[in-house]
C-alpha cells in the first residue's frame, strides 16, 4: 500500500477531526533503528460520521488511535479537532481535548482496573475533572450505566472480574460516555468477544451514537464488522493508507489489491461460497522496521510490477468519494 497524498480530505471547516501526514516512530531498543508504525497518513472524520479503520495486526491502527489522543504525542504531522491543532496543546487546551475525545480499548478486561468497583471506575473521569457534586456524579454514572445496559446496583457492589467480557466492554463504553465526549475512538472493541456478544455491542454503539450524537472512529481487522458499522472505511497497510471509500462502495467495488484480498479472507457463513487460498493474501506482513521501498504492499501484491518498487503511489480520486493509492488499481476512475 502505499501511499501518501491528501486528495481525499474534505475542505477545512467540514471535518470534525482531520489528520495530516501523521508520523509515529518507536525506537528499537538502543540499536538506532526505528519501527515505522505510522508513516505519513492523512484522513478526516466528518461530524456524526463513523469512520472505519481496517488492516492486519501490526499495521498501525492502534498507534493511529492513540496518536489522536496524544498518547504518546506523534513524531510528526498535524491533528486538528474542530479546527484546533492538538499536537501543540498543553495545559488547559489538553484538558479540553481529554473531555472531547475518548477511547475504548480492545481487551475489555484489562482496560478496567481489577481492584476497583465498577461504579468508581465509571465515575473516575468525573472525579478527575471535579465535575458536579458527589450526588450529581452518581446520578450521571447511573444514567450512563443504564444506557449501556448494566444494572447500576450491581455495578456499585461488583468488580470487573465479576462481569462477562461483553459486560466489561459495556462498562468501558460507559466510562467513555460519562464526560459527554464528541468523539469516541473504538480500538477493536469487539475482537475479543464471541459473535452473539459482538452483535450486542455493535448494536449498542449504533444506538448510543444516535442518542448522544457521537462521531466514531472504529478500528478493527474484520472488514465485515467494519462495514456494518461504518459510513466510510479507510484501509491501512504497514503504516500507510491504501484506500478510502464509502463502506458499501468499498465492498462492491474494491480498487486496491489489498482491499480485495482482505475481503477474500473473511469467513463467509455459507458453505457454497468457495474461496481458494490463492485468492487470499499470502505470507507474512513485512517488518515495519525495514519496510519495502515504493509501494509497501508490493512483496505480497499479486499484480506488482517493477514500477511498484521504484515509486510510491499517491492516493488518487476515483470519483464518488473513493480514493486509492495504487499504480494499477483494480478499477479505473468513474
Amino acid at each position, binding site marked *: 500500500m502505499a501511499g501518501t497524498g491528501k486528495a481525499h480530505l474534505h475542505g477545512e471547516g467540514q471535518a470534525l477531526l482531520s489528520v495530516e501526514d501523521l508520523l509515529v516512530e518507536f525506537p528499537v531498543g538502543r540499536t538506532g533503528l526505528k519501527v515505522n508504525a505510522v508513516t505519513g497518513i492523512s484522513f478526516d472524520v466528518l461530524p456524526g460520521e463513523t469512520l472505519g479503520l481496517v488492516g492486519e495486526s501490526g499495521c498501525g491502527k492502534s498507534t493511529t488511535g492513540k496518536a489522536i489522543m496524544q498518547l504518546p504525542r506523534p513524531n510528526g504531522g498535524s491533528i486538528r479537532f474542530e479546527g484546533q491543532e492538538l499536537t501543540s496543546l498543553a495545559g488547559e487546551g489538553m484538558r479540553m481535548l481529554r473531555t472531547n475525545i475518548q477511547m475504548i480499548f480492545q481487551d475489555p478486561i484489562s482496560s478496567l482496573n481489577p481492584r476497583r468497583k465498577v461504579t468508581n471506575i465509571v465515575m473516575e473521569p468525573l472525579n478527575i475533572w471535579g465535575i458536579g457534586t458527589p450526588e450529581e456524579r452518581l446520578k450521571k454514572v447511573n444514567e450512563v450505566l443504564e444506557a449501556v445496559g448494566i444494572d447500576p446496583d450491581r455495578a456499585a457492589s461488583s468488580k470487573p472480574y465479576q462481569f462477562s467480557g461483553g459486560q466489561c466492554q459495556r462498562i468501558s463504553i460507559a466510562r467513555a460516555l460519562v464526560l459527554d465526549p464528541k468523539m469516541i475512538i473504538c480500538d477493536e472493541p469487539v475482537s475479543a468477544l464471541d459473535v*452473539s456478544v459482538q452483535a450486542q455491542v455493535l448494536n449498542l454503539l449504533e444506538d448510543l451514537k444516535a442518542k448522544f450524537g457521537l462521531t466514531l472512529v472504529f478500528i478493527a481487522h474484520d472488514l465485515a464488522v467494519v462495514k456494518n458499522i461504518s459510513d466510510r472505511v479507510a484501509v491501512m497497510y504497514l503504516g500507510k493508507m491504501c484506500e478510502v471509500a464509502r463502506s458499501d462502495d468499498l465492498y462492491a467495488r474494491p480498487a486496491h489489491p489489498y482491499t480485495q484480498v482482505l475481503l477474500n479472507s473473511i469467513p463467509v457463513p455459507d458453505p457454497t461460497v468457495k474461496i481458494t487460498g490463492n485468492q*487470499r493474501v499470502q505470507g507474512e506482513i513485512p517488518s515495519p522496521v525495514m519496510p519495502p521501498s515504493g509501494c509497501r504492499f508490493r512483496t505480497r501484491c499479486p499484480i506488482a510490477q517493477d514500477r511498484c518498487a521504484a515509486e510510491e503511489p499517491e492516493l488518487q480520486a476515483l470519483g464518488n468519494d473513493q480514493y486509492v493509492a495504487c499504480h494499477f488499481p483494480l478499477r479505473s476512475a468513474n
Partner: protein
Amino acid sequence: MTSAMHRPQDGTLLELRDVRTHFSTARGIVRAVDGVSFTLERGKALGIVGESGSGKTILARSIMGLLPKRGTIRQGEVLYAGDDLAKLDLKGMRKFWGQEMSMIFQDPMTSLNPLMKIGNQIGEPLRVHLGMDKENARATALKLLQDVKIPEPEKRLDQYPHELSGGMRQRAMIAIALACGPTLLFADEPTTALDVTVQAQILDLIQEQRRDRNMSVILVTHDLGVVAGHTDEIAVMYAGTLAEKATTAELFANMKHPYTEALLRSIPKLDQPSHTRLMAIGGRPPDLITPPTGCRFAPRCPYATEKCRTEIPVLESISAEHSFACWNPVGSSHWQSKQDELASNAGLASAGGQA
C-alpha cells in the same frame, strides 16, 4: 505419518454415547457437558459451535481425557476405534495422546514453552513417542515446518517462540500437533487470537493437512463463518447439550434450531448494506448449575411456548444427516406465525421512526 499407512481409511473413528461431564464446585454441580452423543467418521472434519461457556472446550477435553482430576464427575462412553476412552486412566490415555490424537490451543503463546527452541519442541514428541534420534527428529521437524508453510523454516528451528509472529506461532503449534501423525486433531478456537487474514491462512492449512494425512479434525469455535468453509459436519452446542447436528451443507441449507438461526443472524455479513441492524441474541447462556427446566434455550428464544419451558426437547433425526432438539423448529407453523409477528412489529417500529 508412518502409522497412517496401515490404518483403515474409512469407517467410524469416534462414537460418543451420552457423555456427561460435571464439576462439583463450592456453588454446586456445574453441568458443563450434559448428555452428548454423536459419531465421527475417519478423515472428516466436525465443527463444534456455540457461545462462550456452552461447553465446547469441556466436550473436546472429555474426549481427550484432559480434564482436571478433582471434582470431575464423568459418565457415558467415548468409543475411539472400539476402545472406551472414558474408562482409561492417565496411564492408559498416554498411549493415545500425541500419536492417536493431539490438540491445538487458542493461545499459541501460552501453549508453547517460551524457553525452548521451536525445533526442539517439535522434535521432543518424535523422540519420546517414535524413538527417533536427534538428527532424524531435527530433519522431521524441518519437514513439518515446511508442511505448515512457515517462511524460512531452517531459521525457525533455532528460534524461540517470542521471536515469531502470532500466525507463525500457531503454525509451529500445528507442526507440533502433527508431529506423530495423529488420527484425530482437536483445534480449540485455533484462530480466535489471530486477525482475519492469518485466520484464513491457518484454517486453509488445517484443512489441507487433514486431506493429505486422512486425519479427522474437531474444530471448536464460536463463529459459524469459520466452520462453514472448513468442515463436513457441524454440531451446535448450547448449555452443555447438542441443539442441532447436521452435515455442513444441510445445516446451512435447512437450519432447524432457533439457536443456530440466531447465531447465524448475529454475524455481520459483507453482502448486507452497512448499518444493517444485527439480530443479537439477548442475554447470556444460562448458569450451568441450575439450567432452565424444559428447553435450555427457552429464556432467550423468541419462539418459546409453554411446552418449551416445561418439557425437554429430545434430539430427533429428520434424516440420516440431520437431527435437532426443538419443539418449534424453523419452518414450523408456530415459528412462521412468530416470524410474521416480529416482521410486522419491526415494520411498525421503522414506520414510527420515520414519522
